[in-house]
């Protein structure tokens, strides 16, 4: 025996079969033992698969396919062996080869090229099961090359035996999508199959293919409406009817006259059918595409109600889905079934709960949002954590939709947000955090309430233990710091911000706390040291923007703190006594000093800022403590000067930033964004130097008045580089390295060429785009004393720039539909050549129409979802015209034909539609 034959014979004699392999795998425990067994078997397979004996090879491939499909083992290396086996004369081996190919081949494999000829051969085999194998394989691994080369073979099969025909039709879908030109060859015969009433399965497959095609680009299939109509009326096969209903749901949206025609038969099916699947499909078609027909919708809603009350959970689930589809156009249907919906919120099935929740949200309007949210909060408290968060999430997203469109009472909404934070399972911290801050920035009127809610959250030590709401606390801290002027008692907030349990917070949030401490501290010191004019000057912006602005609901709070501060200061003196301020300073210093050595840079830096200010203030204020009469001097203290500067910096309001703010800043001429910045290295080397130089140079400019305070300020490690200072630093740098700066048009001030994206003081700036932007953000011109029911909500990006999601049709789909149109119209043209000229007129008209659609389409489709109504009108006009021209005569003729001659029907689409 030859050396090569020996092992091969041994292999085939003692080869493990697939069953042996499976048994082996089952014997070994999952984990190391099993995977070592598998890798051992793989070694065997690698050996066996090279065998010249096709039985051995086939068994090896079988085992490998099994391992690939169920155990995720790579088998791309064996692709060639699979191809080899497909050409085996043994059916079993061929089948093994094809199974391996369809389960494991990927479209990019080189080896696919080798398969073309075998596929062709098997497609034309006399054995129908061989043809099936080839079709099955092709339907999974089809590539453009396969589709192109094999289209003629598949075309032949489209009129063959039913067993093959249905499979060939199912396979066509893949072929079309890979090679749109195949449509030109196969489409007519595919259409012919719509008439194959003899075999339900063939018809089902054909309709299925059209359903898929029409879901991508329905317009091209409008001319086939008569065929589908006939099937809708005649067929008794539920599977076929479901697909036809789906097709009509797509087509009816395009052609209102068609909708009028088919709505009746659909209702008939809905009334008559026993099959729930068909009934549901009718309901779905009616409520999504025929919602203008009142009687049909009524019937559909009645069916939905039956579903809702059924004991079968599946039907109840689908009933809710049906309602969800009705909701946008017929909210009454939802309201009618309100009880069922609300009851479903506590169903055992999560799916049903979710659908019910969605429905409840669809009922929300500005009238009932308060009531619904109250009910939902109740359910959230009762539900399991997962669903509880689902409820919270949908409340948050519904209420914030379109910049809080449905919220009228923001005080209520803020308290709702705070309430959510206290729900034990709440995990939506991030969203609540965002909304609290967002509302603070957008809605001025709500700030006092926001501060109040923030205070309540901050002073509750229990909340600090729940990591899920840390983000909310962060927002509360920020709000309390930023809008501290509305606070009833800033000292209380200070205590809350510094409470010992804050050490439970993660560093990032703790640093927000500390920064808020800084803001509160500077506010308190400011109120204490500079009661009268200082406040006025620092608030000037605020007052300018809203002259005579009054806080309607929280006026009392307001008078207590801010209002009093700015006017006389009687009240304020009660709050900001020397003692209270000194106590506060002590508290700040004692609580924060341990953190000055924190390892977290953010915390450390911010703590040092606060401590720097607090220590300075403590020194000076307690020095003054003895001579109480010298209060007047407070204004001259260093602290006062610094405080004034800081307050100037902090008093500017943050506003929401437009999504497109960055884009709107034009790229200056001559700026090359991709320029190589390697030269920067050499410049960076002396950056340090320049700073130290300019430091001394600049100071006198900053404060030229008082020499004493200047030197003081320099001694102090000044962490607040004031805007003026940094500006001059920048100017200095610009002078040295002018080369790397953009040429500025106006030499007046470096800062004005790079304005902040959304600075409320920007109105004078002459950069066009920014003016536009700020104009939008500053629709705040409030008339004094006007009592608006809903506070102004600052909006940016209204309408114009919102990211519009356009359903972009696939290029391939366009190609397919293009080919379909060619076939259908070309078809008609050739048929018409033998017809009376009168008819041709009608036909050419329909052609015009289709072309018309084609050109007008691209632009219209884009705006379709916005002005859908208008679009339909347009089309109606269009079709009115065609009605006038090609009207009555054809109709009569069709009646004469008795609807039997389907070919004729097909040509006169407009007739049918009339």
């Amino acid at each position, binding site marked *: 025996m030859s050396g090569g034959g020996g092992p091969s014979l041994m292999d085939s004699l003692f080869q493990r079969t697939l069953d042996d392999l*499976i048994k082996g795998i089952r014997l070994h425990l999952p984990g190391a033992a099993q995977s070592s067994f598998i890798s051992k078997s793989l070694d065997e397979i690698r050996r066996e698969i090279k065998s010249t004996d096709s039985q051995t090879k086939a068994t090896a491939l079988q085992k490998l396919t099994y391992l690939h499909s169920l155990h995720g083992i790579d088998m791309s290396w064996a692709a060639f062996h699979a191809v080899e086996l497909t050409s085996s004369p043994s059916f079993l081996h061929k089948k093994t080869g094809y199974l391996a190919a369809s389960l494991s081949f990927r479209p990019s494999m080189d080896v696919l090229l080798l398969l073309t000829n075998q596929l062709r051969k098997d497609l034309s085999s006399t054995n129908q*099961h061989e043809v099936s194998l080839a079709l099955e394989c092709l339907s999974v691994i089809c590539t453009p090359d396969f589709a192109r080369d094999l289209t003629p073979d598949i075309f032949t099969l489209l009129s063959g035996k039913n067993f093959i025909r249905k499979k060939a039709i199912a396979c066509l*879908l893949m072929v079309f999508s890979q090679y749109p030109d195949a449509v030109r060859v196969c489409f007519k015969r595919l259409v012919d199959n719509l008439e194959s009433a003899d075999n339900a*399965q063939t018809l089902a497959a054909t309709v299925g293919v059209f359903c898929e095609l029409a879901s991508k680009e329905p317009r091209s299939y409008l001319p086939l409406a008569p065929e589908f109509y006939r099937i809708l009326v005649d067929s008794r096969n539920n599977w076929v009817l479901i697909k036809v209903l789906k097709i009509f749901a797509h087509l009816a949206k395009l052609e209102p006259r068609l909708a009028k025609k088919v709505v009746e038969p659909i209702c008939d099916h809905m009334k008559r059918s026993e099959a729930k*699947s068909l009934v549901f499909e009718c309901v779905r078609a009616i409520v999504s595409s025929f919602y203008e027909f009142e009687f049909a919708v009524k019937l559909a809603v009645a069916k939905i109600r039956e579903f809702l009350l059924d004991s079968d*959970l599946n039907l109840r689930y689908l009933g809710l889905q049906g309602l969800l589809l009705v909701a946008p156009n017929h909210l009454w249907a939802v309201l009618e079934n309100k009880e069922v919906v609300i009851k479903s919120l506590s169903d055992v*099935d999560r799916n049903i709960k979710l659908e019910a929740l969605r429905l409840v949200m669809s009922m929300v309007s500005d009238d009932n949002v308060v009531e619904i949210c109250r009910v939902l909060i109740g359910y959230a408290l009762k539900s399991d954590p997962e669903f509880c968060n689902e409820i919270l999430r949908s409340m948050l997203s519904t209420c914030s939709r379109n910049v809080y469109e449905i919220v009228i009472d923001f005080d209520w909404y803020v308290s709702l947000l705070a309430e959510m934070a206290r729900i034990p399972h709440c995990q939506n911290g991030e969203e609540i955090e965002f909304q609290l801050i967002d509302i603070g920035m957008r809605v001025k009127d709500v700030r006092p309430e926001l501060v109040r809610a923030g205070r309540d959250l901050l002073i509750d030590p229990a909340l600090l233990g729940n990591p899920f709401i840390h983000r909310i606390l962060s927002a509360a801290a920020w709000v309390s710091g930023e809008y501290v002027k509305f606070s009833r008692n800033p000292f209380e907030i200070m205590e809350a911000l510094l409470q010992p349990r804050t050490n439970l917070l993660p560093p990032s949030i703790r640093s927000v706390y500390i920064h808020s401490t800084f803001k509160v501290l500077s506010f308190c010191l400011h109120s204490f040291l500079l009661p009268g004019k200082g406040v006025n000057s620092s608030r000037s912006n605020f007052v300018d923007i809203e002259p005579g602005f009054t806080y309607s609901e929280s006026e009392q709070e307001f008078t207590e703190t801010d209002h009093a501060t700015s006017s006389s200061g009687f009240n304020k003196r009660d709050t900001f006594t020397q003692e209270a301020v000194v106590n506060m300073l002590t508290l700040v210093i004692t609580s924060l000093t341990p953190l000055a050595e924190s390892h977290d840079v953010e915390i450390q830096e911010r703590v040092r800022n606060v401590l720097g200010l607090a220590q300075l203030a403590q020194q000076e204020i307690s020095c003054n403590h003895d001579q109480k009469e010298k209060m007047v001097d407070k204004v001259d203290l260093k602290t006062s000067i610094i405080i004034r500067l800081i307050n100037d910096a902090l008093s500017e309001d943050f506003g929401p930033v437009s999504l497109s703010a960055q884009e709107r800043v034009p790229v200056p001429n001559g700026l090359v964004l991709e320029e190589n910045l390697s030269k920067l290295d050499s410049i960076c080397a002396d950056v340090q130097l320049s700073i130290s130089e300019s430091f001394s140079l600049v100071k006198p400019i900053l404060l030229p008045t008082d020499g004493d305070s200047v030197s003081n300020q320099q001694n102090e490690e000044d962490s607040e580089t004031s805007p003026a200072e940094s500006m001059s630093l920048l100017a200095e740098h610009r002078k040295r390295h002018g080369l790397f700066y953009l040429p500025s048009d106006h030499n007046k001030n470096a800062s004005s060429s790079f304005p902040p994206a959304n600075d409320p003081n920007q109105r004078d700036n002459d950069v066009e785009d920014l003016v536009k932007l700020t104009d939008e953000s500053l629709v705040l011109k409030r008339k004094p004393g006007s009592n608006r029911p809903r506070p102004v909500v600052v909006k940016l990006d209204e309408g114009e720039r919102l990211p519009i999601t356009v359903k972009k049709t696939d290029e391939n789909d366009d190609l397919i539909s293009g080919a379909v149109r060619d076939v259908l119209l070309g078809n008609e043209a050739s048929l018409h050549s033998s017809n009376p000229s009168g008819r041709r007129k009608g036909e050419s008209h329909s052609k015009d129409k289709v072309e018309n659609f084609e050109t007008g389409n691209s632009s219209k489709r884009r705006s379709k979802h916005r002005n859908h109504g208008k679009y339909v009108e347009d089309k109606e006009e269009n079709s009115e015209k065609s009605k006038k021209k090609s009207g009555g005569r054809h109709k009569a003729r069709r009646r004469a034909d008795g609807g039997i001659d389907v070919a004729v029907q097909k040509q006169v689409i407009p007739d049918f539609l009339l």
Partner: protein
Amino acid sequence: MIRAVIVINDQGKPRLVKFYDYQPVEKQQEIIRNIYGVLCSRAENVSNFVQDSTFGPDTRLVYKTFATLYFIVIFDDSENELAILDLMQVFVETLDKCFGNVCELDIVFNFNKVHTILDEIILGGQVVEMSSSEVVKALDDITRLEKNPNSIVRVPKSISGWQGR
């Protein structure tokens, strides 16, 4: 269209995996793991539908439990949920007819045959047969062909291969 048909047992082990558009095997395994995670968290006696985003926003998943097995079909909005449930019934009925009171072991040890049955019912994501008796008929044909390789031997070349055994 139907995107995938999957059978897994109650421990998450795949027993039948068929995707109708190409998915790398790692992706397949990941999808199966995710699905199993979702399914085993669901209580008994709840609805058979799961909103599933495996293949995009519009896909749905229908599952049905038979003894220790989950039968799962993933499909898009060109299919009807209840019709797919019927289809699963047809599939299981067919398995039942072929194996006689089918159980998990039958499916474990008849990898090829189960695929053959499935291919007779669904092709390229389209349903091509809804009658289990038709499927059984075709399957009998195929089994005969498999057992009797001579029946389609036409090419003389293959004789050498035949003798080699």
